[in-house]
């Protein structure tokens, strides 16, 4: 059962990493236009003025 002392903090830590990652994505606007982003990958055009 001592293994729990390691496993529980590890699982909590991994969950927290996911949570923080989600907040980061939310802040970066990754969910602003999901449909557009899904379609843009089909686009053959070259981006002449990429965002820096």
């Amino acid at each position, binding site marked *: *059962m001592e293994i*729990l002392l390691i496993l*529980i903090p590890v*699982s*909590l830590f991994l*969950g*927290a990493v*996911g*949570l923080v990652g*989600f*907040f980061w994505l*939310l802040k970066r606007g990754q969910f*602003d*236009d*999901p*449909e*557009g982003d899904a*379609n*843009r990958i*089909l*686009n053959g*055009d070259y981006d002449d*003025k990429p965002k820096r």
Partner: protein
Amino acid sequence: MASTFEHSSPAVCPACSVTPAAEALAEAPKDARLMLSLPGIHCAGCISTVEKALAQVPGVHEARVNLTLKRALVDAGPEVTAEDLVKVVESAGYEAHELDPGVLASTAADRSAKDLLMRLAVAGFAMMNVMLLSIAVWSGAEGVTRDMMHWISAAIVLPAIVFTGKPFYVNAWSALRHGRLNMDVPITLAIWLAVGTSLYETIHSGAHAYFDAAIALTFFLLAGRYLDYRTRASARSAAQELAAMEVPRALRLAETGTPETVGVGDLAVGDRVLVRPGGRVPVDGTVLEGTSEIDRALMTGESLPAFAGPGTAVSAGEVNLTGPLTVEVTAAGEDTALHRIADLVAIAESGRNNYTSLADQAAKLYAPGVHILSALAAIGWYLYTFDLRISLNIAAAVLIITCPCALGLAVPAVTTAASGRLFRKGMLIKDGTAMERLAEADTVVFDKTGTLTMGAPHPVGLDDLPVDAQGVALSLATVSGHPLAEALAGALRDMGRQPTPLTDLREVPGYGVEGKWNGRPVRLGRASWMGAEAPALTATFLQIGDEPPQAIPFTDSMRPGAAAAVAGLKANGLRVILVSGDTRGAVERFAAEIGIDEVMAEALPDQKAARVAELAEQGARVLMVGDGLNDTAALSAAHVSISPASALDAARVASDMVLLGKDLAPIADAFETSVKARARIRENFTIATVYNIIAVPFAIAGLATPLVAALAMSSSSITVSLNALRLR
């Protein structure tokens, strides 16, 4: 002395104080962020076409299309106007409307949606971890291990539940303070009773802790709340979007006579405004100079343009057709006839808001029922065992098991799925209960001009004219910007006619166009100009030399999808009525063409509303479809209402749903979808009730372990959500 001098200077020269400000405005041109609504885009190709077309406009720095919201955001220099961009996008083959980004910057709404999403994420994180720990308990952990699991769960859940449940606590508290019960009261009670008894059990090394159930309850309810919020937020932004669609500007004539573009809000009574041909009159006023014809269709529903000359009163919203008009402002902004009607509509709307939605009906039954049930269970167990701990445990179990989460998800999941489906078909839902009300409709009242028709006429019977007369008519028609002339020219060109060379061509604003053909005077224009009798139909007249003038009649072209919408609604067993302010002949001919049997012609705005009210009194649930200012009263009097995107903003504000594109066909779809949505909502309530009926006896009997609670809650919520998704 000096100070006195400085003080008096503004009074000496009023322009001095204004000029620096104007210069400052002119010197520091700011880059504009323009926003366009693009109802027609749907694919990767559309994105790149629109973005490329916009990027090629000189002055545009960056253009980005948002496919999810069907919008384009353009960063451009100050010289670029949204009007130009709309034209560019339209020439690329997509419908576009201007949006006012200032009005759309609904940052507050965005922030609360993000806030809810963050709480949802935290609740999800806490729930997953606690469930993981609970599995150990369910699979038979005992003694110290179980206690440790409970303590860790408590450590995760307590802060999480304080943070994530805040929206419920706030709502519950405000309801209790006003002596009412809402859904949030049993929710708050269930959460805190569950957490409280679980904490007590954990301290005393008890077997049952409901931490997982409490946080799962919060998670599912937050999910429902978030979906609900998103539908409502999109509804709110729809209303804003519509108000923003008509960005009002006016050309004010300065003292020197030079026109300057100003916002309508800056106009004052007594200002002189130039209304160019093709422009919309921005204010109420009287014509000072110029003659023209004005299209009053949006105000009165008449399809025939009226004459306007010095002294004619014009109202905001009318369209100037042929000649430039100088209008003296008699009322601007909030005081115009248009705004007064919009205010009346707002009052009428507030009267309609007492509609009780299915969710409200369910909450009214549910909230007191649950409280009574759990109180009875607690009292019963206390009398049976005289053990407060057991009776409180039972009360918490009952509150948790009667799981309002399925109920909380039942309506928002369905409305989200249904409104998403309708948005893809080109319809925006502005009101949360509109879908339910649409499902109840049994009678449809259509307006004609601008709703079932495009509001754009096309000529008929051109073959009756001699070929040379057709050529003459074409050359005359190309001179004018009058919609009848433009339509005539377009139709003649389509027939392959070439313009006959004419001399001395000139437009007589308000009357028509004249010229000389082989030395004979030729005229195209109003009946009264040539001494002909005006017919009941929309028509223009052609006179060659001394010959009697010949009438060229026009009919309005039908909106795409109009016939399909009418046929679809009829196929669903709805009674379809056509009510129009137009002349009887025009309305009846059109009704026969589109297949509507019941007709009411020459209806004044209040008669339209009265007709709708009369139908409602006879027990009918009326769906009103209209676009004009003359329809707004009827739109707000109806049980539910729809207007096209081209409608006047007052009409769009008054209606519950708005069509995004030109096509009317989504109306029939919307009706079918709403009927299905209502059926799904009812099914969801049934599912939630069945779960409760099965689970509640277990809870009251004291058999509801945390495992049973978790299973009942998750399975009912998932069933309800999946049932809603069948709509997509």
